[in-house]
C-alpha cells in the first residue's frame, strides 16, 4: 500500500517535470471548462501565472471574445464524445489565441481526454502556429508520400477534382480503368465519364452536391471509358476542405465491378439479410458460403464452416440432394441437423440449384423448426387422441361443414349408418345414404335432416330417423342430437350430430305395443302380479270376467278373485312353478267375481323372470270354461244316453227275436196244420185264404229277421282285424255256390288287398252284393266282376254286373231299408240287403254308391279307408 502511494507520487512528480519542460503550452480543464492545470510554457505563452488561472474558464482566458462561444462548444462536444466512448483519439483544433497583454496569434490546440477516474477532463497542447515555415515543410513532405501512394494504386481510380468537378490528379488505377493518360484528362470535367443519359439529368453535379450535403456519396453505376465502352463502377466521392473549412475539391474513388462481382455483392447482402441459415455448397458437398445465421444456429464460426462437408451439419443432406440435382427447387424437407456440440434439432430445408462459373452450386436454406415441430407433434398427438376418443365412442359422431363436407365421421357412425363414401351433395344424402322418416319408407327431406339443421345453426334433440341402405339391408333406428359449433371465430359454423342406434329399443317398443294391443284386445283374461300377489296388470277381458275395473284391481291382492278354499292350491302351484323351473302350469280351478259368482276356469300361470332369470312375478291367463264344462256334461249325458239307447236297442232285438217270433210261429204253425189236415175238404176259397195267411206270416217272419240283422249291424261292436279280403271272397263264393251254379254266372275276380276290417261284416257285404247281382240278372248269362284299387289312401271296391240295372234316379233310394224297385213276385226279398251294406260300409268309415243305366247292368262301389301301417 505504502509503496503504491509512493510510486504514484513519484510518477506525478516526473509527469510534472516533463510537462514543465514541454515545448508546447499545456492546459487541463474539467467538464465545466475550468482550468485545473497550467504548465510553465503556458505561463510564458499567455502571460498568466499558474496560480492566477486555476479555476478560471479556459475559453474566457485565452480566446478573443468573438470566437469564445464557438471554441467552448467545440470543446464541450469533444468532451461529451470522449465521455461516451473511450476510444476517441486526439483532435486538432485551430483557433485564434489571446494573450494577457491583448495580443492575438494563430494557434493550434491538440485536445485529448484525460481520465481522472471520476470524470473525463480534457488535456490540450497549444502551439503558436504563426511561424509557418516549419509546418509547411512538414506538410509538403507528407503530401508527396500520399501522392506517390495514390498514383501507384491500380485497383482504384483515385481522382482529385476541384470544387467544380475538373480533374486535378490522375493515378495509375484511373488510367487502367478509364483508359485516359494523365495528360489527356487533367483539366477535363469529370462528367466525361458519364453516360449521355446521366449528363442529361445533370447527375454529375447532383452527385457532388450530395457529397457536400452528406459528407460522402456512394453509388454503383455505369461509366464510359475513353474508348466509349461502358462498365459498371462503384464510386465513392468525398468532399475535401482546407483547414479553414473551405471546399478544396473532391476525392473520387472509382472501382470497376463486373456483373458477377456485383451479383456476388447482392448475394452476400441478401445472405446476411435472410432469416434462415443459408449454406451454399459445391458439388462435392463442401460448404463454400454461409451467413451469420448459420453461425448462430449451428454454433460454428464462419471460418470453421467454410470447407466443411455439409453432412456434418445435416447428415441426410446429400441423400435429399441427389434427386434434386437437376436444377429443380425443393422445399420443405424436414430433416435433422447437428450442432457443433453434437445436439440434434429438427430443420426444414429448401434446396435451390445455382448455375455459376464454378459449376452447379446448391443453396440450402435451413430453418430451425424445433418449436414448430413441437407444436405440430403436440397437435398431431392431440388429433390422434381426439380420433381415438371419437372412435372408441359408442355413439356415432358426424361433423360437417356448411358445404356438407364431412369433417369427422367416427367408427361408430360408419358402422351404425353404413356410410362408406362421403362425397355426396346434401340434396342426395337421404337417397344415397337411405335416411328415412319414422314411417321407414319416406326419404327424409334433406333440409330437415338433423345434420343439415345443425349446419343451419339449429339445435336438434332426440330426432328419430330410420336408415336403410346397401350396407344395412334390414335398416336401423337412430336417435339423433344435433348442434351447430363455431370452430374458429368468423370461420362460420359446422354441424355436429351425435346419435345412437335405438333399433333394439324401437323393436322392443313396437313389440311391447303389439303385445299390449293383443293383451287388451284378447278375449282371454290376462293379468299379472308380483310375487307377493299384488296385481300389476289387468286387461279388458279381466274386467269383463271378474267385474273389477282396472283401477279397482291394480294394487289389490290377487286373492280377491280366488275363492277361500282355492288359496292353498294356488300357492302350491306357484311354488312348484318356481322350484321346478317350469315354463308354465295349466290347471282347472274356480274363480270368484266381484258379485261373488264362481266361474270354472282354465288357468295358465307363467313366471315372469328378470334378465338374470329370477322370478319377479307371475302372468296368468284365465279362460272361462263354463261353456266347456256344460258341453262336457252334455257330452257325458249324450254318451250315457247312447249307451242306454244301445242297450235298449239290444233289448229290443232280443224282444223281437223271442217275443215277436213266438206268436208268429203259433199263427203260421196252426195255419199250416189246418192246411195239411183240411185241404180240399171244404170250400176251395178256404184253402186260398189259409195259403195267403201262411204267406203273410212267413214274410213277417223274414222281415223281422232282416230288421234284426240291420239293428245288429248298427249296434254290434265291430272288430277290426288284418284280413285278407281274397280269403273273405273265397268264403262268400263258396256260400253262394248253389245260386252261382244254377245261374251259370261267370265270376271275374281281381286280387283284393289285406286290410284291417271286420271280416264277418265284409263277408256279409260281398255276399249281399254278389247275390243281388245274381238275383237281378238279365236274360243273358250273368257276368260278375269283383275288384279293388287304391286311390287317395282309400281302397275303392266294386262289384260290377251285366244284369237288369236300374234308373240312375233311384241310386239313393235303393240303399234305404225296405225299398224295392220290383214286385216281390218277380224278385223276392225284403229290401233290406243294400241298407245293411250301407251300414257296414259306414261303420268302416267308407261310402257306398251305385252307377247304372236301366237294362245295362249296375256297378256297386264302396270305399274303405286305409288305416296307416295296416296294409303292405
Amino acid at each position: 500500500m505504502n509503496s503504491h502511494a509512493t510510486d504514484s507520487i513519484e510518477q506525478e512528480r516526473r509527469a510534472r517535470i516533463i510537462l514543465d519542460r514541454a515545448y508546447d503550452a499545456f492546459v487541463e480543464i474539467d467538464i465545466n471548462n475550468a482550468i485545473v492545470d497550467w504548465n510553465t510554457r503556458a505561463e510564458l505563452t499567455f502571460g498568466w501565472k499558474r496560480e492566477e488561472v486555476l479555476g478560471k474558464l479556459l475559453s474566457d482566458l485565452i480566446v478573443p471574445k468573438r470566437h469564445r462561444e464557438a471554441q467552448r462548444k467545440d470543446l464541450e462536444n469533444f468532451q461529451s464524445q470522449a465521455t461516451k466512448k473511450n476510444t476517441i483519439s486526439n483532435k486538432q483544433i485551430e483557433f485564434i489565441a489571446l494573450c494577457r497583454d491583448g495580443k492575438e496569434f494563430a494557434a493550434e490546440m491538440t485536445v485529448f481526454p484525460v481520465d481522472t477516474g471520476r470524470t473525463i477532463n480534457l488535456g490540450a497542447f497549444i502551439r503558436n502556429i504563426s511561424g509557418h515555415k516549419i509546418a509547411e515543410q512538414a506538410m509538403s513532405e507528407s503530401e508527396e508520400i500520399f501522392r506517390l501512394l495514390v498514383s501507384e494504386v491500380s485497383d482504384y481510380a483515385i481522382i482529385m477534382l476541384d470544387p467544380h468537378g475538373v480533374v486535378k490528379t490522375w493515378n495509375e488505377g484511373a488510367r487502367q480503368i478509364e483508359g485516359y493518360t494523365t495528360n489527356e484528362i487533367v483539366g477535363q470535367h469529370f462528367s466525361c465519364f458519364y453516360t449521355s443519359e446521366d449528363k442529361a439529368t445533370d447527375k454529375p453535379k447532383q452527385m457532388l452536391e450530395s457529397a457536400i450535403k452528406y459528407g460522402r456519396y456512394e453509388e454503383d453505376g455505369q461509366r464510359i471509358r475513353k474508348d466509349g465502352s461502358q462498365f459498371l463502377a462503384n464510386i465513392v466521392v468525398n468532399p475535401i476542405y482546407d483547414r479553414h473549412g473551405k471546399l478544396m475539391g473532391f476525392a473520387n474513388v472509382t472501382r470497376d465491378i463486373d456483373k458477377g462481382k456485383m451479383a456476388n455483392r447482392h448475394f452476400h447482402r441478401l445472405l446476411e439479410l435472410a432469416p434462415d441459415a443459408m449454406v451454399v455448397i459445391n458439388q462435392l458437398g463442401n460448404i463454400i458460403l454461409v451467413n451469420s445465421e448459420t453461425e448462430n444456429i449451428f454454433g460454428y464460426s464462419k471460418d470453421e464452416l467454410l470447407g466443411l462437408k455439409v453432412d456434418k451439419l445435416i447428415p441426410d443432406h446429400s441423400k435429399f440432394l441427389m434427386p434434386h440435382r437437376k436444377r429443380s427447387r425443393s422445399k420443405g424437407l424436414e430433416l435433422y441437423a447437428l450442432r457443433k456440440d453434437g445436439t440434434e434439432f429438427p430443420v426444414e430445408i429448401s434446396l435451390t440449384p445455382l448455375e455459376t462459373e464454378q459449376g452447379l452450386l446448391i443453396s440450402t436454406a435451413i430453418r430451425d423448426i424445433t418449436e414448430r415441430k413441437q407444436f405440430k407433434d403436440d397437435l398431431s398427438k392431440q388429433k390422434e387422441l381426439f380420433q381415438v376418443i371419437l372412435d372408441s365412442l359408442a355413439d356415432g359422431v358426424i361433423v360437417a361443414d356448411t358445404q356438407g363436407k364431412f369433417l369427422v365421421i367416427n367408427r361408430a357412425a360408419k358402422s351404425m349408418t353404413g356410410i362408406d363414401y362421403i362425397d355426396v351433395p346434401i340434396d342426395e344424402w337421404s337417397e344415397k345414404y337411405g335416411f328415412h322418416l319414422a314411417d321407414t319408407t319416406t326419404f327424409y327431406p334433406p333440409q330437415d335432416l338433423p345434420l343439415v339443421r345443425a349446419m343451419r345453426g339449429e339445435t336438434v334433440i332426440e330426432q328419430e330417423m330410420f336408415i336403410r341402405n346397401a350396407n344395412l339391408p334390414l335398416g336401423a333406428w337412430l336417435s339423433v342430437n344435433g348442434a351447430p359449433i363455431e370452430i374458429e371465430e368468423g370461420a362460420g359454423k359446422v354441424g355436429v350430430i351425435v346419435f345412437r342406434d335405438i333399433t333394439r329399443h324401437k323393436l322392443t317398443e313396437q313389440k311391447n305395443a303389439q303385445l299390449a294391443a293383443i293383451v287388451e284386445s284378447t278375449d282371454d283374461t290376462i293379468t299379472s302380479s308380483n310375487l307377493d300377489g299384488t296385481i300389476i296388470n289387468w286387461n279388458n277381458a279381466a274386467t269383463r270376467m271378474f267385474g273389477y275395473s282396472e283401477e279397482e284391481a291394480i294394487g289389490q291382492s290377487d286373492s280377491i278373485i280366488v275363492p277361500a278354499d282355492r288359496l292353498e292350491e294356488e300357492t302350491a302351484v306357484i311354488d312348484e312353478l318356481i322350484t321346478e323351473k317350469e315354463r308354465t302350469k295349466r290347471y282347472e280351478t274356480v274363480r270368484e267375481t266381484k258379485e261373488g259368482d264362481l266361474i270354472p276356469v282354465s288357468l295358465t300361470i307363467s313366471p315372469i323372470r328378470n334378465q338374470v332369470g329370477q322370478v319377479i312375478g307371475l302372468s296368468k291367463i284365465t279362460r272361462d270354461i263354463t261353456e266347456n264344462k256344460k258341453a262336457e256334461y252334455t257330452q257325458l249325458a249324450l254318451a250315457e244316453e247312447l249307451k242306454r239307447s244301445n242297450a235298449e236297442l239290444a233289448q229290443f232285438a232280443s224282444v223281437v227275436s223271442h217275443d215277436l217270433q213266438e206268436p208268429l210261429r203259433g199263427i203260421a204253425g196252426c195255419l199250416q196244420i189246418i192246411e195239411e189236415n183240411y185241404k180240399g175238404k171244404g170250400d176251395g176259397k178256404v184253402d186260398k185264404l189259409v195259403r195267403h195267411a201262411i204267406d203273410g206270416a212267413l214274410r213277417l217272419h223274414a222281415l223281422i229277421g232282416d230288421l234284426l240283422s240291420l239293428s245288429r249291424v248298427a249296434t254290434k261292436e265291430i272288430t277290426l282285424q288284418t284280413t285278407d279280403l281274397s280269403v273273405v271272397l273265397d268264403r262268400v263264393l263258396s256260400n253262394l255256390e248253389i245260386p252261382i251254379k244254377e245261374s251259370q254266372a261267370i265270376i271275374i275276380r281281381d286280387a283284393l288287398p289285406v286290410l284291417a276290417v271286420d271280416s264277418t261284416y265284409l263277408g256279409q257285404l260281398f255276399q249281399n252284393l254278389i247275390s243281388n247281382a245274381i238275383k237281378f240278372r238279365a236274360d243273358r248269362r250273368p257276368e260278375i266282376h269283383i275288384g279293388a284299387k287304391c286311390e287317395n289312401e282309400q281302397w275303392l271296391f266294386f262289384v260290377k254286373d251285366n244284369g237288369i240295372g236300374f234308373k240312375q234316379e233311384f241310386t239313393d233310394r235303393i240303399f234305404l231299408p225296405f225299398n224295392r224297385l220290383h214286385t216281390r213276385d218277380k224278385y223276392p226279398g225284403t229290401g233290406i240287403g243294400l241298407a245293411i251294406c250301407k251300414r257296414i260300409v259306414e261303420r268302416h268309415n267308407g261310402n257306398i254308391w251305385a252307377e247304372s243305366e236301366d237294362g245295362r247292368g249296375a256297378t256297386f262301389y264302396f270305399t274303405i279307408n286305409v288305416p296307416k301301417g295296416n296294409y303292405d
Partner: protein
Amino acid sequence: MINQLEKSMEILLVEDNSTDVFLTEEALASAKIANRLHIVDNGVKALSFLRKQGAYTNVPRPNIILLDLNLPIKHGSEVLAEIKADADLRYIPVIVLSTSSQELDVFKAYNLSANCYIVKPVNFYKFREVLKAIQSFWFTVVTLPS
C-alpha cells in the same frame, strides 16, 4: 224199429207257451214218433221233475230234454246250468229249442254244455222235420246211457 217204438222214449218238454206245446205235440204225432211226452211249463218244475221231487215222485227219468230258453220264474239257461252241474242229471241230453237266432244266445247255451241248439222254425213243416231228425239221431243213431 218196432222194438224201439215199444221202447217208448221218455221226453221232457220244458215249455211255457201252450201254442208251442200244441205244435210240438202235433208235430210229434203227425211224424208218428213213439214217445211219452212229459210237459212242465217252468224251470223250477223242470228241476223238480228231474229230481222226482214234490208232485213228481212217481215220474220216469226222461231220456232227453227239450228245453225252451225263454221261461218264466227260472230262465232256461239257469235250468241248463243246474242240470249240467248235477252229477246225477248231467248225462241226460239237453236239446235247446229257441226262437232266438242271436249268436250270443247260441254261444251261451253251448257254453253251459247244451247238447245241441236248435232255432225253432216258424214254418210248421220245417219244425216237424227238425223233430224227426232229433228222433232219428238221438233215439236211433246214438247210444245213450240207460
